[in-house]
């Protein structure tokens, strides 16, 4: 069971309550909520906000691929996964990503949650532009996308 969405912060926000409703099921004994939030310091610079950009279709496709791989690589068949990533301008403390997972056992939930965030970092085309106290802003360098080429 999978839910994915790019949340445009001009119109909407990421809410943990939506994730809770989606993953809650009596067949699961373990739930983990991972939240990424905008923090105030990066590389010794005072950050006041971040603008997120994304290639929405490729991001959603990557979320689906990562979820499907979990079946084969991690052998976790029964699971609920809720992934939302922000797009647009976020202030300090706002949620940029939520990965909520529910599995039968805690070991599975920890492994699955960590797997998803690490793969998103490598494969989902999302970019950050940091805004600083001195009114400057900068796109973060990032890493080359790790997807297979056709």
């Amino acid at each position, binding site marked *: 069971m999978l839910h994915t969405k790019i949340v445009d912060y001009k119109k909407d926000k990421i809410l943990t309550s939506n994730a809770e409703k989606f993953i809650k099921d009596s067949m699961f004994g373990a739930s983990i909520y991972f939240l*990424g939030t905008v923090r105030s310091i990066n590389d010794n610079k005072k950050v006041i906000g971040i603008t*997120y*950009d*994304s*290639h929405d*279709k*490729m*991001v959603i*496709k990557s979320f689906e691929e990562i979820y499907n791989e979990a079946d084969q690589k991690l052998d976790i068949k029964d699971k609920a996964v809720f992934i939302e*990533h922000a797009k647009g301008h976020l202030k300090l403390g706002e949620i*940029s*990503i939520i990965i909520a997972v529910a599995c039968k056992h805690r070991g599975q939930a920890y492994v699955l949650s960590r797997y998803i*965030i690490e793969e*998103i*970092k490598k*494969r*989902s*085309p*999302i*970019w*950050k532009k940091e805004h600083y106290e001195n009114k400057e802003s900068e*796109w*973060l*360098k*990032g*890493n*080359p*996308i790790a*997807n*297979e*080429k*056709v």
Partner: protein
Amino acid sequence: MKIKLELFGASRDFSDKDHLELNIKDKASIDDLRNEIIKYIDKNFQGNEDFIKVVKSSAFCSENNEIISDNYKITKNQNIGIIPPIGGG
């Protein structure tokens, strides 16, 4: 032939629009496209080194939302996306 290059991440600084329209030769490769973008930067941004670094470190994606190799041949008028190094989360 004309192609529409959709801009993402750091490449959005290349234009006020969300895309560039570029003329490239028939059956151009992604390498050829990369060179055309660098020519555009030379012309419009006096060869801005940071912008050229972005182009050289970027991947590209097809209309089918797949990452394409540098040898991929662009055979018809199509949209290509430039994918600078990523970093979500």
